[in-house]
């Protein structure tokens, strides 16, 4: 075929339909057994089992016996070479290992591909099993490849819930939607809990009195997180315990508008709300807490 480059041409040499190979009785038996989903070797006069079988003992040149021995199906890798970039004619389209595999009961090793996923998963001593092709024809590729033993399965578990923020959470989030933090005061101990909840964890009685807290508070303690999180704009981010003015329990919230390493115990902060038209009854309405600039509080 002429090419764009002068005096250069592509040329293919391929016998139409492919060469044939007569198998002879021994290899023919091997391939016939393979088509039936079995692996056999042949016994030599000295008693060794050759897999794949030959018509002669390669060590002595003597004819083999007529005894066929079923081997495998599993075997042990004796040597391997990793193929990081498979070629079009390779048996697998993903990285694999060429390996010498000594099938159980055999005295010689067979070359085949091992689908191991990664090079660390195959080495001398690795146990491998054949993965058979769905439709077999009596060819070595009737085994599409060998693969390590099954040692793990994936077991997806998925539970789907419909969550309804009712009760106390609904009250709190309704407040968030209009830009206020709703808390509850215990009639017993007088402590103010925020977010609003139905009962006092100390006294066990209903929190009868609702109270609206300002968006200002004090950082009581915090962590500087260096692990990314989808709810934080960047790394590092500060998750802080913020004691809202008038509350008796801190809330955990994001601190922003200040470099992480400038956040301090006792720092005064104020909730920064998203614009009113973007507000929803969800904590996403509070962008973060930012410093007010007031002097720190002694804890």
């Amino acid at each position, binding site marked *: 075929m002429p090419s764009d480059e002068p005096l250069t041409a592509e040329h293919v040499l391929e016998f139409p339909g492919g060469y044939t190979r007569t198998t002879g009785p021994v290899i023919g038996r091997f391939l016939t057994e393979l088509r039936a989903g079995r692996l056999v070797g042949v016994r030599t006069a000295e008693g060794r089992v050759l897999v794949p079988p030959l018509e002669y003992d390669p060590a002595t040149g003597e004819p083999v016996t007529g005894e066929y021995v079923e081997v495998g199906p599993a075997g042990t890798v004796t040597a391997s070479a990793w193929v990081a970039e498979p070629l079009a004619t390779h048996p697998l389209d993903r990285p694999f290992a060429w390996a010498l595999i000594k099938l159980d009961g055999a005295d010689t090793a067979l070359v085949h591909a091992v689908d191991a996923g990664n090079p660390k998963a195959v080495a001398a001593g690795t146990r491998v099993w054949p993965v058979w092709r769905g439709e077999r024809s009596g060819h070595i590729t009737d085994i599409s490849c060998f693969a390590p033993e099954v040692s793990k399965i994936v077991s997806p578990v998925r539970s789907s819930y419909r969550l309804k923020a009712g009760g106390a959470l609904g009250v709190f989030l309704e407040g968030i939607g209009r830009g206020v933090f709703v808390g509850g005061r215990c009639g017993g101990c007088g402590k*103010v*809990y925020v977010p609003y909840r139905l009962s006092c964890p100390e006294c066990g009685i209903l929190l009868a009195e609702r109270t609206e807290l300002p968006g200002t508070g004090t950082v009581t303690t915090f962590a500087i997180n260096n*692990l990314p999180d989808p*709810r934080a704009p960047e790394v590092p981010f500060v*998750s802080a315990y913020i004691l809202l003015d008038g509350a008796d*329990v801190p809330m*955990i*919230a994001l601190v922003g508008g200040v470099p992480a390493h400038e956040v301090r115990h006792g720092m005064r902060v104020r909730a920064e709300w998203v614009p009113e038209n973007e507000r929803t009854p969800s904590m996403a309405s509070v962008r973060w807490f930012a410093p007010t600039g007031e002097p720190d509080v002694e804890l």
Partner: protein
Amino acid sequence: MAQRCAVIGVGQTHYTTKRRDVSIAGLVREAALRALEDAGLTFKDIDAVVIGKAPDLFEGVMMPEAYLADALGAAGKPMMRVHTAGSVGGSTALVAAGLIQGGVHERVLVVAYEKQSESNATWALSTHLPFSSSLVVGAGGYFAPHIREYMRRTGAPEHIGTLVAVKDRLNALKNPYAHLRIPGIDRRMVESTPMLWEPIRYLETCPSSDGACALVLSSERAATGTPAWVHGGAMRSEPIFRAGRDTVSPQAGKDCAADVYRQAGVTDPRRQIDVAEVYVPFSWYEPMWLENLGFAAEGEGWKLTESGATALDGDTPWNASGGVLSSNPIGASGLIRFAEAALQVRGTAGEHQVDGARLALGHAYGGGAQFFAMWIVGREKP
């Protein structure tokens, strides 16, 4: 008066990141059979099985006790599961001890496990529900602010956490079951690892481990082998969102310690307890628990750590086994503390044995430091 209870068998698996070679059933059996062998018994000799593990979401196996009953020889016997988050291993042993002390059973098999490699604990602890904006990422994200608050209150210098991280890993080198065995571990190595949840560095945290631990508990009448005697056991919990809760030194921990000390006749834990296995998943929790458990006065725990008193050759060794910092199959971690305490007073702790240990504390905590479980075991009968 309660019946006496003894630990007569201890079994552990070698803790590691991924036990690819066993199923969950195979893992718990490995620990159980070792404990039975240690006691010279078989499943036939066991009256009841108590199993503990942390949240089902870790492996995605719901009600694993039902699946594991047969694997633990519990067919036709009482079988129950305990769950108190990270403290569960300790609570499981105490539930089983109660069955012996109450005279219900003669011999109870206790098993706790976690196979963390089946998923990811940080994922399982950070399942963010709609409407909430919780920024807590995993256990480290939760505990870091409380560690920071401890440092602020006490003025503890920053290297204390590093000292514990090194000390426990040095101990782990003497424990064949430990997961993290880092030859040449030193301060520089720990300090060179990244801050994950400041002030917690990578090597100041516990690993994720696969593993199981098992005990055989027995009445005095049915005891075999070398017993470690239970001198006291206590559990406490407290509401996590209570106003005024001290998250650095929780009241439930103090109350639990006071209860177990009273039962065991301990008035001065630092002097009377020869060795303590205390749940320290982040290195700073050693000085924090030294104070919470009364081994040091408030604000002084870090000084005890800094002095070397808690090292294997110190006067009050903590976590001779390498502790949670070196092996953390979460559900089993508390039971491992209890088991190691028993090994010490039996004199069978091997290379990390504290010479002449006669009284030992096993401790576990869980959730947001809101569940506590402790026992004291001794060489002599109580």
